[in-house]
Each structure stands twice: as C-alpha cells, then as structure tokens.
C-alpha cells in the first residue's frame, strides 16, 4: 500500500511540476501571486469540502449531499438576512447549525437505520436542494453587509483572503488528525475492514456519525464562503459541486472502496485540477475540454494497479 501511495503521489507530483512548467511558459501572468491566489479562490469552496470528503471516502462512505448543503446554507443565510431581517452573525450561526443538523440527519439514516450512504445522501442531495429552492425560489439575493462581502473578496492576511487561510488551517489540522490521531487511525481501520474495527471494540456508528456531521458543517461553512465571495445567492448555488469534489478526492488516490488514501494526495489533486483549469483558461480552451482532461486523469487514477491482498483462494 505504502509503495502504491508513494508511486501515485509521486506521479501526481510529477504531473503537477509539468503542468506548472507548461503554464509558466504559456503566460508570464501565471506565476504572479495574484494569479495564484485567484486560481485558488475560484474553487476555494470545493477544495475545502474535499478535505472532509477525503475522510468520508477513506472511511468507506460517500456524501453526495455536500453541494446541496452548500446551496442550502448560502440560501438560508441570504433569506434570513435579506427577507427575514435576521442579523448577519446570527444568520451565519444558524446556517452552520443547519449544516450540523443536515449531517446528523445523514448520519442517523446511515448508522441507525443502516441504509447505504450512497442512497441516503442521494436523497438528501435532492432534499437539501429542494429546501434551498423553496427558501429563495429563483430570486437573486444580493447586497449583504459590507464586512461579509469583504470577508469573501478581500485579503485577510496581506493579499490572502479569509477562505484561503481557512483552507490552509483546516488542511493542517485535518492532516494531523488523519495521520497522527486515534480518530484518523480509526477512520482508516473502519474503511479497510469495518468488522475488524468492531471486533476491536471501536464504536463504528459513532465514528461515522461524527464524520457526517463534520461533512455537513464544513459544507455549510463553504456555502457561506461562496455567498461572501460572489456576494449573491440563488437557489442553484453550488449545484453539482459534489461531483467535482469527489473527483478531486479520487484523483488524489483515495480508494473508492475505502481504507487507503491521504490528504497529501488530495492536496496534490487539488493543485493539479486548479492548474490544469487555469492553464487551459489562459489558452482559451473551453471548460468542457478542461473537464474532459480531468476525466482522463481520473480514469488513470483508477487504473493504477492496486497491490492485492487476499488473492489466495480459500481452501476447504
């Protein structure tokens, strides 16, 4: 496994260097700090959610409802502030609370009722989106408090915006959690073999509940970041983001069957996807072709032969 991860991550790193080299050759703009920050900013909400999605998929689950939760939290915020007269800080807290509740709802169906996360989060993908549309319909809500928009659009530390700082902090914390903590270890063991974890006395339901609550909460947080960055919300905010997020995580080498993967891989995949899109945009290549190239990369990531355990047939 270690060899495989190293080789896949090595491949990602090499690809990244090549892509950056090409991009830098294509345009003198590319390596400027402004372009680099911009490159992150355009997808910052997705890549924040991808960090938690890495845990979910390593754990052997999936959360398809994150895009809809981003939309719901952004719409709930807009609706409360613009149409219900709620103060923005309170609206932020309530939106985050919706994330907690939504994640807990997913977790409840998955751990207590025992439904597959694919089905549960497909249902809440529809449900959360429906709620967002009920709240905002097709109105475009805009004109949020100035400090809120500034948080999304201006530098917090020098030129670095709040969302990018949040991403960096979250990455650091989650990296330590996954690689060094008991929680991270349990995430890997449960994803590798849930029964082995249960026989070792690990409460796997509680663990999955925590992960889905974290996923819902971070998605809600990312939805608020989106509202702040764009300065407007509509019912279709973040529509379909879940697929981009899952693509990044799988491209990073996390096994869709759970168990193996790392945040380093996810980070490399993030950088590759962002740089490909940026470079192609510099070349005026359309978004569809960009998506196609990323699709090819994803297929490559799945085709990398896995080290097999347990190929020996069972006797008698």
């Amino acid at each position, binding site marked *: *496994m*270690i060899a495989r991860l190293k080789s896949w991550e090595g491949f990602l790193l090499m690809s990244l260097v090549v892509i950056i080299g090409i991009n830098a050759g294509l345009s003198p703009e590319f390596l400027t700090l402004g372009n680099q920050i911009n490159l992150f900013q355009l997808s910052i909400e997705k890549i924040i959610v991808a960090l938690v999605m890495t845990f979910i998929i390593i754990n052997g689950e999936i959360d398809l409802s994150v895009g809809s939760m981003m939309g719901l939290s952004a719409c709930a915020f807009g609706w409360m502030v613009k149409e219900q007269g709620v103060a923005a800080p309170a609206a932020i807290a309530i939106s985050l609370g919706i994330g907690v509740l939504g994640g807990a709802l997913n977790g409840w169906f998955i751990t207590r009722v025992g439904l597959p996360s694919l089905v549960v989060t497909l249902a809440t993908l529809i449900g959360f989106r429906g709620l967002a549309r009920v709240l905002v319909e097709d109105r475009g809500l805009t004109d949020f408090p100035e400090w809120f928009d500034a948080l999304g659009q201006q530098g917090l530390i020098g030129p670095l915006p709040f969302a990018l700082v949040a991403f960096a902090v979250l990455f650091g914390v989650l990296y*330590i959690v996954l690689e*060094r*903590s*008991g*929680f991270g*270890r*349990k995430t*890997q*063991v449960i994803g*590798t*073999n849930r*029964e*082995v*974890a*249960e*026989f*070792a*006395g*690990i*409460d796997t339901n509680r663990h999955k509940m925590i992960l889905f609550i974290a996923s819902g909460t971070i998605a809600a947080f990312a939805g608020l970041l989106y509202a702040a960055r764009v300065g407007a919300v509509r019912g279709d905010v973040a529509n379909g983001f879940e697929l981009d997020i899952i693509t990044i995580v799988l491209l990073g080498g996390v096994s869709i069957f759970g*168990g*193996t993967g790392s945040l380093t891989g996810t980070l490399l995949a993030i950088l590759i996807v962002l740089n490909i899109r940026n470079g192609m945009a510099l070349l005026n290549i359309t978004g569809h072709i960009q998506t196609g190239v990323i699709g090819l990369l994803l297929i490559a990531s799945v085709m990398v032969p896995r*080290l097999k*355990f*347990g190929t*020996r*047939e*069972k*006797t*008698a």
Partner: protein
Amino acid sequence: MSAIPTLALRAVSKSFGMTVALADMTLELFPGEVHAIVGENGAGKSTMIKIMTGIYQPSSGQVEIGGAPVVLSGSKAARLRGVAAIYQEPMVFPDLDVTENIFISATDAGLILDRRSMRRRAEALIDRIGMTLDVDREARGLTLAEQQAVEIARALSQDVRVLIMDEPTSSLSAHEAAELRRIARSLATAGVAVVYISHRLEEVFEIADRVTVIRDGRHISTRPVSEVTPQGMIADMVGRAVGNYFTKMPSAAQQEVVLSVRGLTRTGVFEDITFDLHRGEVLCMAGLIGARRTDVALSLFGVHPATAGELRYKGQAVRMTSPAQAIALGIAYVSEDRRKLGLAMPLPIRSNISLATLAQYLSPLGLIDRRRERDTAMAYRERLNIRAPDVDMAVGVLSGGNQQKVMLAKWLAMQPDLLIVDEPTRGIDVGAKAEVHDLIRAFVRGGGTALVISSDLPEVLALGDRILVMREGRQMGIIDSARATQEGIMAVATGQSEAA
C-alpha cells in the same frame, strides 16, 4: 462394476501459494455407485469437489471422464460433460418458478422458450426423482428439501453422469434427509455416479457402496462399505502419525472460577451450554463444522448476545452485549477468520497490534504516541518471533503463520484475563503451530485463562485440560483430556456415542 470409471482423478494435486490442499489424489467413480467421501474439516474435500466441477484447475495431475483426460475449464464445462454438484445451501432463484429454476442454465433453449414443453419436461424430471411438487410455484417458500430437489432436477435436465452432493442433509430434518438419500440411491440405480459427502457417519453407512477417507489433502483409503467399521473409519480420518507431534504439558489450572456459564442459549443457534472455566485452565471446544462453537464464542464476546442463560465473570453476573464491553472486562477474542474479522490487511503490523489497545497510546489531545506504538510492536515481534523485517510493513504481505501471530499479539497486548482463540493454527505450518501452542501455554501459566476452539484433534488433546464437545448447537459433554482419545472425541462429535 464396469472397468471404465465415469470420472477419475489421477494423482491430482492442488496448492494455494505455500499451502498444499490436495496432494497426489486418486479417485475413481463408477456408474451406479454411491461413493462417500469422508474426512475432517480441512481435509481437502471442498478442494476436491471444486476440481471435479471445474471451479479449480489442478496444479498437477489429470482429470478423466469416461477414460479420456479432460480439462474442465469452468463449472459450465463440467456441467456439459455431465458433472453437477448440489450443496448444503441450494441455489435457487426465489422469484422464478420451479420450471424456470430447473431450466435456468438451459443452453439448448434457443431464442424463444417453449414454455409448455419446458413445463412438461420439468414435471417429468420432478416425477423421476419421486417428488410431488407444483412446477408453476415460485421457488420462494419452498422448503430446503424441495429446493434441493429442484437442484437435482436441474442437474438431471442436463443429462448428469456424476452428481456430487456436498453435505446435502446437514440442514434437513430426519425425514427430509431420508427422502434425499432415497433420491440419491435411485439416481445411482439409474446409472449415475453419486458422490456423497457427509459428516454424519451413520448416513454414510446407510447409503454408500464405497467409502473414501481423505486426510490432510491425501487419499488414505477406499473400501467397500461392508469392509469398514465406524472405528476404523474414524481412525483413518484422524490419523495417528500427526498426533504424536504435540506434547502434552501439565495443567496450570487453579481453583478460582473466572467464567461460569450456565444454560447459555441463543435461540435457533445453540442451546444449554454449561461450563466453568478456571484461572490457568485451557478449555478446548471440539466438534465438526456446524457444531456452532464459534457462535458460542461470539456470544461470550458480546458480538451476538445470548438470548437465555447466565454468565458470571469473576463472580459477577454479566450480560455481554458488545465487544467493547467484553474488552473492558478483559476478554479477548482471536477470530478464526483472519481476513474478514481479524486483521486490517493493508495497514501496517504496528497499527494492527495496537488496534485493540489504541486508547493506551493516545495523548490528551488524541494523538497517537507513535514511538511507543512502534516499540510495543517491535517487542511483540521479538516475543512472538514474527518474521517481518519492519513493523511498518502491511500485515497482508506476511505468511499465514506470521499473520496469525500478529493477530495474537493484538489481543495479548491487551493483557486479557480470558483469551478466546478460534482455530488458532488453521492453515499455518507445523513449526508456527508449535509456537502458537507455546504462546497459549505461556499465557495460562502467567495467570491467564484460555478457551480454545479447534477442529484439529491432536491440538485439542495437546492443549486442552478439558475438552467440551459440541454437535449441532448442543453440548455433548466435557471430557478430561487425560482420558480422551481422538477416536473418542470424534465419536461424540459425530453422534456415534455419548461423552463419558
């Protein structure tokens, strides 16, 4: 008996990696005979069936059908040559009716199924095996015996010449089992070679013409049933040579009762299990597959809680409802299934050894003390003689014996009071077996208590201070190992005699 066998294995061997499942196996099946194959769990019966039905390819040797060498490249190829098998759990499709189930794999159906002629043929087949069964009924709701009849009819529909029946009666009632034996007999009379595999020796004596005994993947004997006695057959099954390898050690049992079990029952699975386990004692549970020994262990470990009966652990009445609870009480369970329940194969040895005791390595912030984790893993590697260059290696790449030791290390690291070990040496080589035995003995000499489930009779006799024999979910008796013999245990486990 004609001179050309319907099907023959000629010096067939099959190995999986380092494990030899079948060695130099020779077997001849003649038309019109019921040929019983008996052997202990793991003797190689399943591998043999899989070779005859084309699921496995022999590593060496030859399969012959009608005297000519053949290569059975899969179960379909075997069926086309007239070899079919039915198993303990019949394979029927619940949403299809009986007719459709019989012709499920019909290869001559063409594009359009002629429903009426299929129905007629289905009726004829069911009639031929002497059953009454509505062929338009959905298979859902058929009894196990009826489902097996459907399977047999399916085999007959393809002009079967060799019918292999693998433990066909182990889930049937006495009446249904008698019915199935009658069907097997009548098929043989019609010229089919019937292979009959059963743990029920009385059944073998009733139905078989000839009996082949296999042990450790080798052919031991093939004789007409009239020349065989139950005692002789059991002696062949358990063998004598292996038994001498393990040496009996003096018991370390003390007075204190660590675990007291009274009338433990899990409805429909096992019932009325009663024993006391003393500190320093090794109690072995013997029995055949289906004796439900593992289920008793899983109840004691809280995985599948018992539905009735009493448990007292160190004098306190307890109800075990989860592994976490059992672990907190100092009970460890080493599973028989390394792959499924024992180890996280892709993860390092280190992470597997610390898994049941992870909380001990955590800082107040929840971070793992990796140095201590690594030191512990290296200490156990040393102590258990685990052959691995580095404890950061994935446990999945180790040999079976070393994996087994990692699994033991995981539970020994917990320093349990009661160690339940399920098939501690299955599928590992003789050297590793002796090492595992020494570990269990050292554990009880150090004040631990062990409950060992094993199908390996020499192991049971060498390790156990007492032997609890189970059969089909019932406790048949507890035998003092000083007075036990392999033959005696096997006779109790197969229902041939009562425990003393």
